[in-house]
């Protein structure tokens, strides 16, 4: 036994690579590369307007992605984010509507309802998965149908609206022409994740996702942590539903329907291992932004020369 024998040299994963993966750096570099490539290709300058619209359309995905990352890290899968987003949207539109409340009280109420609904449904998922030991993919598939059905029962057709003051608060500017609110919200989501990660819960989350049996033997309360992971994820899905409602300003029972695949795509681009134990939500946020930019760009690629030559042409226009 020599001392240098203790740490086995693993040729495929040298330290810098591990560092890049751990902190979501690769996803960040990919995001940066995409942005730089678009700046090089686009004839228009990147303006504050672009920053504002892109961040607004990426925030819902980023928030839902943080939630999904938490479940995935713990070794589970949650298929319910889209349905929860839809339910939160229709509940806010039908129950609050364009109310006469002050904007502060309105927002506080909306946040409570949205996060409450999300966390509540997440808790049901968590109970069924951790205490009844049902497979998470089955449980959340069922919840997805039930919750989506409930959303359609509450609001059959798109319609209704929320308070415009509330909407402007969430998609407006913190500092005009410098910092849009959605960026602040994404930042808060990332801070929340960093906090969660450093809690004892966070260590336990990685532990149960990496090896539930070993975690159990190391006195980790596996069931409680799994339960909590679904509940917290639900809260993030609720927050995503809140934000998309402010961004859209109106109700649509199928507003979250397209999110499921995108959420998982963001998680995977972000470097979190499906199956658990490795990765983190910072990467997911970068993944969500990359995804949003690329899809916005591809959509606008075909917008034609007229739009591009107008004075407020978005940055993402083709050099046609």
């Amino acid at each position, binding site marked *: 036994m020599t001392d240098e024998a203790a*740490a*086995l040299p693993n040729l495929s994963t040298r330290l810098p690579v591990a560092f890049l993966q751990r902190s979501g750096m690769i996803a960040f570099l990919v995001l940066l590369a995409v942005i730089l490539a678009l700046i090089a290709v686009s004839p228009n300058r990147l303006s504050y307007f672009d920053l504002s619209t892109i961040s607004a359309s990426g925030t819902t995905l980023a928030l839902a992605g943080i939630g999904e990352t938490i479940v995935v890290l713990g070794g589970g899968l949650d298929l319910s984010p889209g349905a929860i987003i839809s339910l939160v949207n229709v509940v806010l539109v039908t129950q609050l509507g364009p109310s006469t409340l002050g904007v502060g009280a309105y927002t506080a109420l909306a946040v409570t309802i949205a996060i409450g609904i999300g966390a509540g449904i997440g808790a049901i998922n968590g109970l069924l998965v951790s205490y009844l030991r049902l497979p998470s993919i089955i449980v959340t598939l069922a919840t997805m149908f039930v919750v989506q059905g409930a959303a359609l029962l509450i609001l059959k057709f798109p319609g209704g609206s929320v308070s415009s003051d509330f909407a402007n608060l969430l998609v407006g500017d913190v500092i005009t022409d410098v910092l849009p609110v959605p960026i602040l919200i994404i930042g808060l989501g990332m801070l929340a994740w960093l906090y969660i990660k450093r809690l004892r819960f966070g260590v336990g989350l990685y532990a149960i996702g990496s090896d539930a049996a070993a975690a159990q033997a190391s006195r980790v309360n596996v069931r409680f942590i799994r339960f909590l992971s679904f509940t917290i994820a639900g809260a993030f899905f609720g927050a995503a539903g809140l934000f998309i409602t402010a961004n859209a300003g109106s109700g649509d029972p199928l507003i979250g329907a397209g999110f499921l695949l995108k959420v998982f795509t963001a998680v995977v681009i972000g470097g979190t291992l499906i199956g658990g134990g490795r990765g983190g939500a910072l990467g997911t946020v970068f993944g969500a932004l990359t995804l949003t930019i690329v899809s916005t760009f591809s959509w606008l690629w075909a917008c034609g020369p007229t739009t591009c030559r107008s004075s407020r042409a978005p940055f993402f226009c083709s050099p046609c």
Partner: protein
Amino acid sequence: MQATALSISRLTVRYGPTTALDAADLEIGAGQVHALLGENGAGKSTIVKVLSGLVRPNAGSLGVFGRIVARFEPRYANALGIRTAFQEISLVKDLTVAQNFMLMEEPLNALGMVRGRALDDMVRARLEQLGINSIDPRTEVRRLDLPSRQKIEIARAISGNPRILLLDEPTASLSNRDVQWLGDVIERLKRSGTTTVLISHRMQEVRAFCSALTIFRNGRTVGAYAMGDLGDAEIIELMIGRSLGTAFPPKRDRVEANSKMAAPVLACQNVATVRGSDISFSLHPGEVLGLAGLDGMGQRELFLALFGVLQPTAGEIRVGGQKVQLRSPADAITCGIGMLPEDRKTEALFLELDGRENVSLPSLQRFLHGGLIRSRVEQKMVANVLDLVKVVRRALWNPVRNFSGGNQQKIAVAKWLLTNSRVLLLYDPTRGIDVGTKTEIYHLIRRYADSGGAVLFYSTEIPELVNLCDRVMVIYRRRIVETLAASALSESTIMSAAVGRQRIDGASEQHATAH
């Protein structure tokens, strides 16, 4: 009169149709170092799992320091002062050593966040206190080799200041020096009043560390004895319920003469790996060539290079006289090389798949008919090799997870019998395997060699090398420093070469290193 630390009576544990413990009794006095002995599947590990709160017994009672324990969960076991180092190491691979050490006991700040640096410092101090300086607490466990993981597993159990310490095969992958370290630690704990329960298959350690022992067989208690009352042979007889006969098959004298004539089936010429240089040897049909060495001397890399996992940085490998480039294990298998790796559970077997799939995987090509697997032929051939290695037919359709370590190892051997391998690379194949099965594996190896196969056999247990091998090479600091012929084989000659001591008598006629 000693107080009782642990008393178990009529404890029964069933896993579905199998009974792991059948009304077993155990009593351990406070402050004792007590050994639990028995073959694999005798129920020792189940007792450890019950005591750690991982398995709930179906019947029986359990007392800890005179108190009857009604409900067992890991956290309650912890509260009672019971700490365990498990055989299946219970470290979480994606966490760091420090995170594993203090899992759910991390130092927190006012916001409930883990104080990372304080955690690392605490664990570093504790490791140093236990004499482990070579492992950085910030290392992820997945980057540690097996012996280091085992040391950390033990250190973690000890550092909780246990009243009762359970060690389930703690030395299975430790080198002799680390076993010595463990002995010192146990001795220190004993002086401070800790009760230790040790499970081990190595009689030497059991003798050195323990004052009493309890023997189990088929889930039942055979009896409890003081260490001095029984000789090794008696203990083994009580464990397996019959006398063992000779553990090692006889060597055949003519092999040496034969192998000189037959062309080598595997030859290395000045092979260098990341941890080895200038390695030359040749392996002949019908030969069991041993490899001895302390941990981390380059034997692992040599095996991996011969199986195509690592690329040698220099030199050439010849199989049957042909120079070959082994770029992957697939190449090695095509050349007729099979390997039992260090960790059979992760590297040799698919635990969730059944025995048929495990055994036939490298040979699937042979069962193909128009691209489809002819499962009837497959089943028949696999059943044949399972018979050869004496594993029950039930293994054909049961996940290998359900089998004991010894049977798993035999299934792994069966895989290479099916590919008709000419060369078997065995990396410590009897680690963590009970005496009865060990004997079977020795005979299996010898039969394989007698029927013309060639075996490269690395073992951490020197007596195995002495009694089973025709020649033994000793690796020290990346080089083969000695090749001992049958006549020169003894534990002391191997050991002295393995620790790098030069031979002074010059009795060996085959110095592998020319310089």
